[in-house]
């Protein structure tokens, strides 16, 4: 295949800005799928992705396009996930391209993640084609949006294309621009194989499917290859492309994008960003940019019914088959019993895992409040990473605690600046920059402790900006902080699953809010229940649940017995689903209380 006729590009877009619809139009226009084969939005193949409008895993589709110059081209559309948790995957997908469409909703304007990803594309020297989408909407403001793209990303508004993926306007112009403006891939066909792994997933029938972009050389079935970061070798069984259905090919050469199957059993063995080379004739240097994915957010996952623990373990094993970034290990909680401490890339990643467990594996889960990875230096000089508040050593033996800090970029309407700065200050942030773009957009850059963001920052940001602010971040460093563990006690017994690590100055306020919340969530019992919040041995808040006074059926005659028995059984079942700490029965929702504290008014 002549690589001068290849164009590799991806689409950078915020959720709901129309990426999937645009991809569908490309498929139609290039005849990749006949209309009756089109299931709306083919690219987002998981139900969950479609429902949430998020692309979780990247895919690549090969399109054959006959351009206005009469020549036919191969266009590889490489899809990228659209959320901050997956920025590493985005970066690797962009590294497989020479160009990117910057797709912006003309009625919404540019969002922070779009800017961040556009900068990533600039960093990778990609040719960027701005596409102003949804111009058919009554609220569309294409001029202003193009202007904004110029202000925020520095792209000439004259180069932007007006389109409506929905009604097809401008779609052909976009493909023409891809052909004309995106440079063809460069590479040495005779050089040793060098290919970038930019995605992989587990397929029950074929094992791990690996998506690659060939940089130099060629790859074909029967070739023995090496995964350079892992050092592992395997033999290529199958090579092909998605168009969008999988089609086997004899070879993939310079600039081509496609899949290989090589008897790899676990996605962990085909890491995104790794370089594939021929074992017998390896390339001199791996492609740059490979990084081990490190989970940053941790939470405990427990089955509501303790006896389903083995089922939960099996479900987690299965999810991990397809998710190299997800980690878990068994843990035990006094309150919740046997469960797992799970590590995620971020909050969205956590939500996705939770939802898949509930939906695909029918698990009822209790999830503890998510936390971050703290670095604790003890007085004897040992350094430990703490992913669970329960593991924090006693205050006396702590030399210092460091917490992860993010660089946050917030894009917001100018009239919300005051409220956002106040929020960031409250969250212990350090302001780095504040820039006005035009008269009504502002870019705020802050360093923020990650645990504050994990707690409730994003919800609060949306509230104070009436939904208009957007956020992009990455963990940039650790800093030392006076952090303490806030414990919750019921009738003097600590509920380990409710402990959180907080800044010393916030412990009092949060302890009071938590105790008040728990008072509402813990039902009245046969005896008084004392709820206390404590830091170390110091009690900082107390609430009381008064004892239950009446739970009796007034009448129970001959015809009532069956019905009353059912009622008693139901009540018993309800209690069985509660978690018991000492004598106190605590409903599942209470364990989420820590999470939702931030949503309380005031």
């Amino acid at each position, binding site marked *: 295949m002549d690589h001068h006729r290849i164009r590799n590009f991806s689409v950078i877009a915020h959720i709901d800005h129309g990426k999937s619809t645009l991809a569908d139009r490309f498929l139609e226009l290039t005849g990749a799928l006949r209309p009756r084969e089109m299931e709306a939005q083919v690219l987002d193949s998981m139900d969950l992705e479609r429902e949430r409008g998020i692309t979780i895993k990247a895919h690549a589709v090969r399109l054959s396009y006959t351009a206005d110059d009469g020549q036919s081209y191969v266009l590889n559309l490489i899809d990228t996930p659209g959320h901050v948790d997956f920025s590493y995957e985005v970066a690797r997908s962009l590294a497989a391209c020479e160009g990117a469409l910057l797709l912006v909703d003309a009625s919404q304007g540019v969002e922070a993640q779009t800017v961040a990803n556009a900068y990533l594309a600039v960093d990778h020297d990609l040719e960027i084609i701005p596409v102003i989408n949804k111009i058919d909407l009554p609220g569309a403001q294409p001029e202003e949006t193009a202007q904004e793209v110029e202000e925020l990303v520095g792209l000439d508004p004259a180069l932007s294309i007006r389109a409506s993926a929905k009604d097809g306007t401008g779609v052909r112009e976009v493909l023409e621009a891809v052909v004309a403006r995106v440079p063809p891939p460069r590479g040495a066909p005779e050089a040793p194989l060098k290919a970038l792994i930019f995605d992989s997933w587990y397929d029950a029938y074929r094992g791990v499917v690996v998506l690659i972009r060939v940089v130099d050389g060629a790859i074909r079935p029967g070739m023995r290859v090496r995964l350079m970061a892992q050092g592992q070798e395997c033999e290529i069984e199958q090579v092909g492309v998605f168009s969008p259905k999988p089609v086997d090919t004899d070879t993939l050469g310079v600039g081509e994008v496609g899949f290989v199957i090589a008897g790899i059993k676990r996605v962990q063995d085909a890491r995104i960003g790794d370089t594939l080379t021929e074992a017998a004739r390896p390339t001199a240097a791996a492609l740059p940019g490979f990084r081990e994915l490190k989970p940053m957010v941790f939470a405990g996952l427990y089955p509501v019914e303790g006896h389903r623990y083995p089922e939960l373990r099996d479900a987690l094993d299965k999810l991990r088959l397809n998710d190299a970034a997800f980690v878990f290990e068994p843990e035990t909680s006094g309150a919740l019993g046997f469960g797992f401490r799970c590590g995620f890339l971020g909050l969205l990643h956590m939500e996705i895992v939770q939802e898949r467990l509930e939906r695909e594996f029918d698990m009822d889960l209790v999830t503890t409040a998510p936390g971050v990875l703290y670095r604790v230096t003890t007085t004897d000089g040992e350094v430990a990473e703490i992913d669970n508040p329960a593991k924090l050593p006693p205050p006396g033996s702590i030399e210092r605690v460091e917490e992860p800090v993010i660089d946050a970029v917030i894009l917001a309407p100018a009239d919300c600046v005051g409220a956002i700065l106040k929020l960031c200050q409250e969250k212990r942030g350090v302001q780095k920059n504040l820039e006005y773009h035009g008269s009504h957009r502002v870019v705020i850059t802050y360093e923020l402790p990650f645990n504050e963001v994990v707690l409730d920052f994003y919800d609060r940001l949306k509230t104070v900006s009436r939904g208009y602010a957007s956020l992009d971040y990455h963990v940039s460093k650790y800093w030392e902080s006076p952090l303490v563990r806030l414990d919750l006690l019921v009738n003097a017994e600590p509920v380990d699953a409710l402990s959180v690590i907080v800044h010393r100055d916030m412990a009092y306020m949060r302890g009071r809010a938590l105790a008040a919340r728990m008072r509402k969530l813990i039902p009245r019992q046969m005896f008084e229940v004392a709820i206390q919040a404590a830091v170390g041995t110091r009690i900082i808040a107390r609430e009381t649940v008064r004892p239950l006074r009446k739970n009796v059926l007034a009448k129970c005659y001959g*015809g009532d017995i069956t019905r009353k028995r059912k009622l008693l059984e139901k009540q*018993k079942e309800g209690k069985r689903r509660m978690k018991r700490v000492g004598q106190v029965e605590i409903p599942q929702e209470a364990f989420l209380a820590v999470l939702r504290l931030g949503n309380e008014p005031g």
Partner: protein
Amino acid sequence: MEHRDVPLGLYLHVPFCTSICNYCNFNRGLMDAPLKAAYVRALAGEVRSAGDGAPADTVYFGGGTPSLLEADEVAVLLAACREAFDLAPGAEVTLEANPETVDAAALRGWMDAGVTRISLGVQSLLDEELARLGRRHSAARAKEAVGLARAAGCDVSADLMLWLPAQSRADCAASIGALLDLGPAHVSFYLLELYPNAPLREEMARAGWSLAPDDDAAAMYLETLERTDAAGYEQYEISNVARPGKRCRHNLKYWQDGAWLGFGCGAHSTRAGCRWRNVAETGRYVDMVGRGLPPVAERRRLTHEEQLGDALFTGLRLVDGIDLEQVRQRYGVDVMARHGAALARFLEGGWLVLQAGRLRLTRRGMLLANEVMGTFV
């Protein structure tokens, strides 16, 4: 497993009412004279065809409003009971009555037909409360009915409802006081239980009547018992008190793991480890009996565990509680060996007492009976 020597209780259901109360969830419908005549015939027919001559010592006419029955209808039905069962000479025969249906002539008629005990739906002795409940009688009429029934030589039981919408503790005490002044032999008092779609719920919302907090319900319950104690009544079940010797023998069968047969639409029966219920709809019931079919909607054999569980949770409703030795003999189960661990916290907390081979709730424990009874299901 059957306790053959224990005589049966016979329950006869009368599903008719002159109006439908806004809190009531029993099987009932509006009065319809031709249907009632057909129903009484069917009821007598069902009793006769079910009869096996087994000993019985109580009959209970429940409803609905059984006092809508004429004396001769009661007589026909009791005759059927005597024909079909070995009804003991001193049998307790109770008829539930609404105060507005009671006068001296009616009482005389029912008693001549064999009724020995009248259970009056007094509910409250405050006119305002009666109006809120949509009852057709006044407090004065209720008092009159109790007086007439006592004068006729009947054992009188009065039903009272506590924790009514907009009722204060003082209101509750006033009703109790007024009732005890009338001197009935037996009193049942029930904390109001609003079933999910009760029209009363809507009326409460519309009129802004609210229920007092359940702390008040507990107080009303305990205060009521203090009053009945002081007036010489003995509490024998969670919601029932009686003068000595005046406990309701029929109802005791439900809590003493007894056997009873229910006749009429929607009636339930339990006997020899089986439980069944009749079809609920009146017309259908009449039709099935007319065609010689057993009017049963559902019949089940109870497992050993169900029988045991029912015996324990219903037995706990009695002030005398559960006779553990009797349970051991009947079911071969040592209750304390099996449930001791689960019951320990109730015993320690003073809600439950184990004394002289009996397990019983304390008065405070009765208010939380469901918490304890859950152990047995």
